[in-house]
Each structure stands twice: as structure tokens, then as C-alpha cells.
């Protein structure tokens, strides 16, 4: 499905968070949103998914205003993976993924619903966890369960809010490979916010760089990841001359940012008490 966002603005209690954000996401495209903390990445995803409701609706899905769809209709089109997931009461992995079938279930779980849940667990390689409790899993496993839940919604569009932020490097790569697979051969449109510029550069078809709630740069990774952009948006110097597999690699050149090495020396005047054996 094709999604186009235009003129999207959002305020939290009068404070503007997003300003006139505009971009399109095509079929089978993986788009990453990067930007400093507080630049509005998460808010943008929540506005797209109508968890937050911008005053004037500005998201068209295949030409249809998403504000005119019911919550249920929208949940059949869009899947959302939040930054962190906690469950107030323990549920098994199978039950959590089954929640993704909610838009299609009235009361009883059908044959097709458990078929789809099992398929998603198998696709993500977490079938062996099916009867474990969600809260007992590691961060990487939990993230896969939540992705499986979003896939069980059978959405055309997937939104993921910093899915790699608490994962080790192997799980980070694994999650992004999954997302690329879903976009390239699964035909889903994937929008994902990321902090890691190198991961974004490596996996995105297109990148959007936010600064204080507006789109500062947009385009292919080599167009967005430039020393100049990083300097302006993040306020740090970085080298981007290196590249891996044709994608730019960011190496920060900052050494003692904020001069902490010299300033920390005066913080603690008292000597620790002498410890006798």
C-alpha cells in the first residue's frame, strides 16, 4: 500500500512537536526515520497510527484519509511495534501473538487464526518459545514476539519505534534483516525509527532525518548521511567517507565532548575512607 503524509503537525499541551511533516512511503519500501532525542520520531509514528490524533488529519493510505477509518479498520492495515512492551499480567508467547488477530476475532479463535499465529512464530524462529511467558524472555526475544504480533494483524504497513534500541548487535542485525525481508519480498511498507545511523544507512531504502519536529533531510542513505547534515542536526563532527556495501559509515570524530575529563576532577573532594583488611 502507498501511504502519503502531508502537512502533519502535532502539539503536546501547546508545545509544537511536529511541524508540517511530509513524506511518502511506497509499496515494499523500508523507510527509516532518524533524528536526535526529542526530535519527534516516536510522536510521528504514533500520529501515523492514530494513537495520537493530530488536529488536522494528514495521512492518506492509497488515497483514503486514515482519519475516516475506524480503529479496527486501521488495525487491519497497520501494525505497530512500540519501543518497549510490558504486560500487566503474564501471558504466554502464543497468547501475545494471538492478540494480533484481535481485529479479525469476535470471540472464539478459529483454525485460521492459530494457523497464522503459528506461521508467524515459525517465520521469526521463536516457535520453541510458544508456551513460555512473555515477561520471562530476553529483550531480543520479546522484540521478535511483538513483531510477530504485528505481523499476525496481516498489515500492509508496519511501524516500528526503535526496535533495536535495547538489543545486542546480533539481534539488531537480525531484526533489520527481518524488516528488509518483509519489505523486499513480503511487499510490506515498513517505517522504522532508529538511533543507530549506521544501521539505518545499511538497511534503508530511504531515510528521513528529523530536526526539532520538521523534516531536515530526506532521500537515499548517501544523500542523507553527510557530515554537514550530522553537524547541523546532531551538533557533532563525523566522518562519513568510509562505506560498506555502497552505504556510508558514520564515524564520530568527537573526543572529549563537553570537556568532561577535566571537569570531573573537581567533583569529589573527599577521599574514600581507608579500608583495613
Amino acid at each position, binding site marked *: 500500500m502507498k501511504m502519503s503524509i502531508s502537512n502533519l503537525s502535532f502539539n503536546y499541551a501547546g508545545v509544537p512537536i511536529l511541524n508540517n511533516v511530509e513524506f511518502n512511503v511506497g509499496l515494499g519500501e523500508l523507510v527509516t526515520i532518524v533524528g536526535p532525542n526529542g526530535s519527534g520520531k516516536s510522536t510521528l509514528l504514533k500520529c501515523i497510527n492514530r494513537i495520537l490524533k493530530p488536529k488536522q488529519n494528514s495521512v492518506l493510505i492509497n488515497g483514503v484519509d486514515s482519519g475516516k477509518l475506524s480503529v479496527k479498520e486501521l488495525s487491519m492495515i497497520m501494525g505497530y511495534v512500540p519501543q518497549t512492551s510490558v504486560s500487566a499480567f503474564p501471558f504466554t508467547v502464543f497468547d501475545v501473538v494471538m492478540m494480533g488477530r484481535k481485529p479479525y476475532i469476535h*470471540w472464539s479463535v478459529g483454525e485460521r487464526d492459530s494457523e497464522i499465529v503459528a506461521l508467524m512464530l515459525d517465520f521469526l524462529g521463536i516457535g520453541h518459545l510458544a*508456551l513460555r511467558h512473555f515477561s520471562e524472555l530476553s529483550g531480543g526475544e520479546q522484540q521478535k514476539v511483538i513483531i510477530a504480533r504485528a505481523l499476525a494483524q496481516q498489515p500492509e504497513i508496519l511501524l516500528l519505534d526503535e526496535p533495536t534500541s535495547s538489543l545486542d548487535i546480533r539481534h539488531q542485525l537480525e531484526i533489520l534483516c527481518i524488516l528488509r525481508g518483509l519489505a523486499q519480498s513480503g511487499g510490506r511498507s515498513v517505517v522504522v525509527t532508529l538511533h543507530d545511523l549506521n544501521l539505518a544507512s545499511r538497511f534503508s531504502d530511504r531515510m528521513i532525518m528529523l530536526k526539532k519536529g520538521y523534516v531536515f533531510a530526506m532521500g537515499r542513505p548517501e544523500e542523507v548521511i553527510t557530515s554537514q547534515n550530522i553537524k547541523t542536526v546532531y551538533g557533532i563532527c563525523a566522518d562519513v567517507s568510509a562505506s560498506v556495501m555502497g552505504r556510508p559509515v558514520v564515524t564520530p570524530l568527537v573526543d572529549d565532548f563537553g570537556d568532561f575529563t577535566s571537569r570531573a576532577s573537581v567533583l569529589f573532594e573527599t577521599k574514600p575512607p581507608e579500608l583495613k583488611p
Partner: protein
Amino acid sequence: MTTTAELKKLYSKGKKKKILVIISLFLALMATALFSLSFGASSPGITEALSVIVSKTFPFLNITPPSALAETIIWTIRLPRIVMAIIAGAGLAAAGATMQGILRNPLVSSYVLGISSAAGFGAALAIVFGISIATLGGYLVIGNAFVFCLLAMVIVYFVARIRGMGSESVILAGVAVGFLFSALLSLVQYISPERNAVQAIVFWLMGGLYTSSWQNILICLPIVAVTVILMMFQAWNINILSMGEEVAVSLGVNSKRVLSFNMVLETIATASIIAFTGIIGFVDLIAPHIARMLIGNDYRYLIPCSMLLGAFMLLAADTVGRLIIMPTELPVGIVTALLGVPFFIYLLISKRRRSFN
């Protein structure tokens, strides 16, 4: 690697196990009811008890009850009390389970949400002024308790709505309203001119099933039945809300609407019970937790399982209360806590998995 077929089989196996638990609980409840029916200050025995019930429910069979005395004891005294215990236990437990789920908090009960204190105040008001002014029919106390429960809910709802209907604002508003009504309750007791009235209030607050009658059941049962059925239809919404309000929206659940609707359901169910029985606590808090340990958190199974456990707990406690110091009896609230707390603590310690996060 587990295949999809094996996964599906695992899931349906879990489902069968849950249904089995529910069936066993139902049988246990029926056995307890039969036992409770047959024993008491006067013990007619199981066969007599059954023949009274059969002769009353199927009058066309022309079975003559064993004796007029047995008929009175079984049919007009004991059976309504047992039925009321089952209705009250089941309804309170269902309301407790769903409220805990909706508000994502394992400590929620009718006490926390201010409903109990409001009922107490309503009843006290009716007792004090009803006694001193005139009797306004037998339903004055019941009606007043019920109305004040709803009033408490309305206050909690509007306070919480200003704060965006978050679960913590509902709970905090509930606690505050609860304190308000207990203060008002104390005030009524303090200024009450009649000693008898104060005693009657204390008695009411302890809760009990001794006033059960078919007439009361006829009012209470339909309300509880309808609200509980509506709660059952909310099972998926409640499951999903436990993952958080934002996620619920992304899964197609209008979380604020679900929260408000359930608040109304749970208040009506609880109010219609405690208006008749007085304040019965503990069951609505604990029965859902024991059910969670037995059957997990899927509300499609958790609600019926909690109901059976709640009914079982209340009926068992009332039976013990009736039998333990015959011919007088202990109020059901006291017995429920005395028996239930040690059992619950045992479960809490012995179970590896927690029933809440």
C-alpha cells in the same frame, strides 16, 4: 524446530486443559452446594434435601416432600442462601477480575474503587434515618446502598475523565472517593441518635447471607447475569488492554471506551450484590488471582474460572460459618478471610510463576 502443525496442537491442548479445570471447579461447586444444603442446625440429609428440590422444581411429578419442616428449611431458608452465595461470589469475582484487568493492577477491588465505602454510607444513611423517621418498605437500605455505589462510580468517572481516563487516575480517584465515603459513614455513626441503629450499621458492614430470599434473588440474579455476560464479551478487549493503552489502540481497541464501559458494568454488578448482602470483601480481590494461577490470564477462561472460584469460596465460607458454632453463626466476611488468607499465602509462596507482573 517446532513446526506450525505442532504449535497448533500445543495450543489446542492448552485450551482443553483450561476447559477441564473449569468443569472440575463446577463439579466441586455443585458438591459443596449439596453438602451445604444437607447440613446445618437441623440436618435433613442429602436424600430429603434432593426430594424437596425435585418436588418443588417439577411439581407435575407429584412427589410429596418428606415433611413440611424439611420443606421449609430446605426450600425457604437454606436453598436461597446457597443460591445467593453462588450469585454473590460469582458476580463479585467476575467484577474483580475484569476491573483488575482493565486497570492493569492486581490490587484493584471494590474497596479500592470506593464502591464498598459508598455502599456502607448509603446503607448507614438509610438505617439511621429510616429507623428514626419511619419504615419506607424493606428495600430502603438496599436501594440506598445501590444508589450510593453508582454515585461513587460517577464521581470517580468524572474525576478520572478530566485526567484523560488513565488507569492510575481512576484508581487514585477511587481511593479518594472511598476515603470520603468512609469519613461520611463514620460521621453518620457518630451523630446517630440511636444505639440500635449504630449496631445495625456494624452488622450490615460485616456482610452476610442470612437475609437471602427468593424475592431478593429474583432482583439480583438478572442484573448479575446480564452484567457478567457483557463482561464475557469484553474478554478480548481486556486481554489486549493489559499490554497497555497505546498498543490496544494499535490493535483496534478503543481503550477509553472499553475502560468506561467496564467501569459501569463492574459497578452495577458489585452494587447489586453488596446492596443485598452487605459488604463482602476479599472474594473479588483473591478469587481472580487464584484463578490466574490455575488457568492463566486469557480472560475468555479467566472470567468463568474466577466466578466458579468466587462462588465456591463464598459458599464454603458461609457453610463453615453456619456449622462451626451451631446454633449461632459467624458472618461470612470473617470466615472468608480467615480461611482464604492462609490458603492464598500458601499459593503465593508455593507457585513458581507469578500471577501478575
